[in-house]
């Protein structure tokens, strides 16, 4: 049985831990709010852009290499987005498990299947399991900005246009709410447009002016759309990460509180027991002298 001093120092250390987890929770909450705003602001832009692409490509019958799905993809790139840091519950574990399963299931279907990891956690995970990622991008999620995302998007785009890969898939944590996130796998390239988006009346107008030509507009729009998609997925992942960390730290703070109260109880019990024993010793000693 531990002695009083041990328990006292144990309580102290748990209290310290609790303070750290509480601080981390608050930091994550603040960051989450910012990340959430980011996503909300991005949505109208992303939606409008996709709508325009669909409208123009369908009404003007423009086709583009980025739009054409390959009937039988051979070379596939899998982009896995995780965080650089841990202490965020199952956030990274979930995504890594999903990606690993996906990789194993689909590996045989294609000639090559490469991995590109965003975030330290995915890179380490796959390296440990003998799958060396083609590239690992670090420090991206810390200060996520459109410019950074556009750089990554350009890289991916180049791989695609140069024919290294004919499909690019992205696995990331989608931000559902502050406490829940979902692992999703999306095809980034080629881009899919659905007829359902079509609802712009000006494109039906006979004297519509295109400046420049529709093919050029579509080309520009698709490139931008792709960067926006990458930016959106990264933002979602960042928001989900902060959400997950907030929940994990909230739990940790609660558990630490429970632990402190249990330890305090044991401490008091032991202290009382010690006092009782001491008193008994004193009284029995006095008895013996009197007797």
């Amino acid at each position, binding site marked *: 049985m531990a002695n009083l001093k041990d328990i006292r120092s144990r309580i102290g250390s748990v209290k310290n831990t609790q303070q750290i987890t509480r601080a981390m929770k608050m930091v994550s909450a603040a960051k989450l709010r910012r990340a959430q705003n*980011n996503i909300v602001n991005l949505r109208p832009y992303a939606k*409008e*852009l996709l709508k325009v692409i669909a409208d123009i490509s369908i009404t003007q019958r423009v086709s583009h290499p980025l739009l054409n799905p390959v009937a039988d993809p051979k070379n596939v790139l899998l982009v896995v987005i995780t965080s650089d840091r841990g202490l965020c519950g199952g956030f990274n574990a979930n995504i890594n498990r999903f990606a690993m399963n996906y990789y194993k299931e689909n590996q045989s279907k294609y000639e090559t299947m490469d991995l590109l990891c965003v975030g330290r956690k995915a890179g380490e995970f796959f390296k440990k399991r003998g799958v060396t990622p083609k590239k690992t991008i670090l420090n991206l999620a810390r200060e996520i900005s459109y410019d950074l995302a556009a750089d990554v998007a350009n890289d991916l785009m180049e791989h695609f246009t140069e024919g290294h890969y004919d499909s690019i898939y992205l696995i990331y944590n989608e931000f559902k709410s502050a406490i829940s996130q979902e692992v999703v796998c999306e095809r980034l390239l080629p881009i899919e447009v659905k007829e359902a988006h079509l609802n712009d009346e*000006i494109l039906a107008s006979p004297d519509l*002016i*295109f*400046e*420049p030509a529709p093919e050029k507009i579509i080309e520009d*729009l698709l490139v*931008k759309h792709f960067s926006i998609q990458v930016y959106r997925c990264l933002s979602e992942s960042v928001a989900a990460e902060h959400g997950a960390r907030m929940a994990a730290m909230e739990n940790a703070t609660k558990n630490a509180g429970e632990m402190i109260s249990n330890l305090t109880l044991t401490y008091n019990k032991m202290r009382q027991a010690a006092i009782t024993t001491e008193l008994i010793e004193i009284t029995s000693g006095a008895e013996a002298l009197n007797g």
Partner: protein
Amino acid sequence: MFTLNLVTPEKKMVTDQEVEEVIAPGSEGQMDIFPGHAPLVGTMMTGVLKYRLKDSSTYTPVVVSWGYIAVHPDGVSILAETAESVEEIDRKRAEEAAEKARKNLVDPYIDGDQIEKFQRKLNRANARLDALNN
């Protein structure tokens, strides 16, 4: 009603403002759009976008980089990659960026990608300074 909407990935810059005139840096040349303009879809390059609110005689400049512009019978909607109002521009930074880009561009050893990159930077810095000088 002829309204202007300007959206970027980071914010909604202008929402349903009633305007009388919009001057946009179209990729094929500057466009001056008044109510009643024929329907148009096009792209914009880096430059200064100016708009004049209804019953006003002053132009509000906004620095935009690449964007998509659609003119409807009832307004103009713009999707810009970035947009900055004059208040957000730091003159000193813009001047320094322009200077640096200019210096890099005369370097004989840079490759094509970099030329493009510095040219873009120079255009952006120049657009910022243009907006401030107007």
